[in-house]
């Protein structure tokens, strides 16, 4: 069936099914905050020896602690794009989430979902046919990090990576179906295309660099930083190149709640705002060796 990025479908899905997202009062009464995080997504959210780990887990934990609540995790399996993830995990629930024994059970949703881009243009995007706001069922708020792109390279294979031009001649690994994949496969009239090696995850691309399959890896800055930090080997270094003609050079990352539960969003936002301002946020990122850049909201204030 269809493989296009499905930007317009969510507004029209009309089948029934009650969803289990909760108001601020219900959350406080229950004593638990259900935090949505992506599954298998280091360094943001993943499991190590059965224990949840990662930046977003730590931020979620700090929010729950501050609110006097216990954190429950809702692991998100990513769908084709963010619209789908918001529908499946924040406001509506997934159509396969059904309980045969208890057909009236509510669908499992996160109270608040982490790692949601904070982008006005995205948040207020309209369906080109109906004029309806595509994501009107959620509120995106609370930017806590600014994300970007980065290349790591093997210093025994490449002297330096000053510009992307070297990848006309040398191999580079990327995550399949990611923006680095599109960028390297199409930019500069496709001159780097033949040197692009595709991997299921950035970590597998990094392993590919260690085993000599590729000489460099391109991924999100946080992913590259965390992998280099964990590897702790001066042989692998951050490149100093820019990314000419890439569409999004930087973007901010925040959270989302269902639009009818703004009060919960305000409470969470207050906690996160304090964490950004008093340096606790940066400290969480530095645990994983990640370059911390303030979201635009805070850069403008300073």
């Amino acid at each position, binding site marked *: 069936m269809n493989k296009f990025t499905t930007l317009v479908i969510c507004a029209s899905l009309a089948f029934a099914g009650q969803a289990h997202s909760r108001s601020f009062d219900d959350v406080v009464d229950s004593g638990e905050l259900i935090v949505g995080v992506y599954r298998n997504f280091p360094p943001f959210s993943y499991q190590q020896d059965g224990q949840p780990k990662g930046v977003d887990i730590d931020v979620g934990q700090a929010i729950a602690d501050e609110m006097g609540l216990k954190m429950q995790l809702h692991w998100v399996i990513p769908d084709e794009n963010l619209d789908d993830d918001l529908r499946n995990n924040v406001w509506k629930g997934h159509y396969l989430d059904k309980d045969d024994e208890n057909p009236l059970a509510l669908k499992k949703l996160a109270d608040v979902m982490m790692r949601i881009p904070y982008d006005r243009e995205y948040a207020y995007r309209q369906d080109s*046919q109906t004029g309806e706001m595509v994501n009107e069922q959620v509120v995106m708020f609370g930017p806590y990090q600014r994300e970007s792109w980065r290349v790591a390279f093997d210093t025994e294979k490449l002297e330096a990576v000053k510009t992307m031009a070297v990848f006309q001649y040398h191999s580079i690994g990327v995550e399949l179906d990611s923006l680095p994949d599109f960028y390297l496969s199409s930019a500069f009239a496709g001159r780097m295309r033949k040197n692009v090696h595709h991997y299921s995850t950035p970590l597998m691309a990094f392993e590919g660099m260690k085993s000599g399959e590729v000489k460099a890896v391109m991924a999100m800055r946080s992913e590259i930083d965390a992998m280099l930090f964990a590897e702790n080997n001066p042989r692998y270094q951050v490149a100093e190149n820019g990314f000419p003609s890439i569409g999004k050079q930087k973007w901010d990352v925040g959270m989302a709640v269902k639009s009818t539960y703004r009060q919960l969003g305000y409470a969470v936002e207050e906690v996160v705002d304090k964490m950004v301002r008093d340096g606790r946020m940066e400290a969480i990122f530095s645990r994983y060796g990640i370059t911390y850049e303030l979201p635009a909201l805070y850069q403008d204030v300073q």
Partner: protein
Amino acid sequence: MKHTTLGKGFAVSLLAAAISFSTAVTAGVTDQDILNDQATTDDVISNGMGLRGQRYSPLTKVNGDTVKDLRPVWAFSFGGEKQRGQESQPVVKDGVMYVTASYSRVFAIDVKTGDELWQYDARLPDAIMPCCDVINRGVALYDDLVIFGTLDAKLVALNKDTGKVVWKKKVEDYQAGYSLTAAPIVVKGKVITGVSGGEFGVVGKVEAYDAKTGQLAWTRPTVEGHMGYVWKDGKKVENGISGGEAGKTWPGDMWKTGGAATWLGGTYDPDVDLLFFGTGNPAPWNSHLRPGDNLFSSSRLGIDPDDGKIVWHFQSTPHDGWDYDGVNELISFDYTAEGKTIKAAGTADRNGFFYVLNRENGDFIRGFPFVDKITWAKGLDDKGRPIYADAFRPGNPAEATDGKQGSSVVAAPSFLGGKNWMPMSYSKDTGLFYVPSNEWEMDIWNEPVSYKKGAAYLGAGFTIRSINEDYIGVLRAIDPKTGKVVWDYKNYAPLWGGTMVTAGNLVFMGNPEGYLMAFDAKTGEEKYKFNTGSGIVGTPITWDMDGEQYVSVVSGWGGAVPLWGGEVAKRVKDFNQGGMVWTFKLPK
């Protein structure tokens, strides 16, 4: 569990013995039975009502004069809270109907009474995310087995009398994006299946399993560069790389994740002893990333049923940029031209062209549009290759660097196709194909403000529009020798169910509005109409029993159409879901 195996087997055989005493002879389905399926009117034991997939029945009791009296004799509900698209074709053998339902369920029903004999619910993993709805298109029968594919990409063989699992095989990893929704077919004692999966990174393949044991016999990837294998005496033996070698029609390492899923299953013709499978579009969807023909995406393949070798290929949409899957069924038929019998095959593609191929070697005989509007190609050359209209190829999202929505391209047909999965039929009496088609187009544009898994991404936005105010669906009777549309029937909603044709000069088809309809096969005159209570997206069958002709169809609105927004969704949003098998006959 091991210690109970003996006891259980004993109990089962007693039960089977009891059943065989109480009813007539219930012999197992043989290869010969399957090859004769189209000619034997007392059963329907294969998808397509015969392996060629013609969906033609020699029955004549229900005909243009009598069909007005057709009455339901029973209706059977799939029940549960799981009412989604029901795209199944039932099969019938020895007075029992075997039919699948959404969410990988199988039901056995007594066709005399409509009573349930057993139900099997595949236990799906908790975290499963199938790409494309939760439909299933039907079972295959072999020996005493009922064989079908599940959403978590397993083949399951059930005992026909008890519904208990006899064998179960994982065809692919559902976590990697694979699933199974097509009806398998059985050829020469082997179950033949493709794989579904729209996610990026999937590679299509066709596989054969021993029908009785579930042992893998051969596997054939449908993307150039991947090795095929056969199993000889339990040993996996290399059997040649699809297309000879990697990188001939793909750049870089993109062949490793090239798509071309075989998600609609296949047909078989014993005359030329070949399987015919169609393949899905190439990955990634952005054609500008993968210059080249990208074999064997959007193609029809002729495959040797004994070892899986690709004998011939015909690519309907080389270097696809519109999501024109080439999976649609290839139906074998013979016709006479200049005193010679031509072993031909017909197929109506997503891309709006109908192709007549030589089924012995895949050569293009002729092709013509079967929908009114095609923008992406100006026509076909003498080899059947499209002559592209370059202005109608969707743009490269990577060029949208200014953060603005790229220019929009209007392409017709839409990616849901001039014809989608819903099977057409062919009548040797009229020499016509009965093609359920749709008239719709799509806008596609680059969407630079897009995110995936918390990361900036480059997506494409699209929307589907109807071309005409008063209809989208068109059932067309098409002469494959001339390309002439002999008659048509227009339908307000898009058609999503298959057709069947009978020697009684009737074409049967259901529509999303819920009607089972019958048309005069020669003139298109509407002869019969019955509201089944929910939209029909399945395919009817017919058989006879005790001297009476029966017609069955599954009703239950769903599938891909309601998933798409905009104007098309508005046309169908008030259709109610369902999940029923309806069975009809003439009053005595």
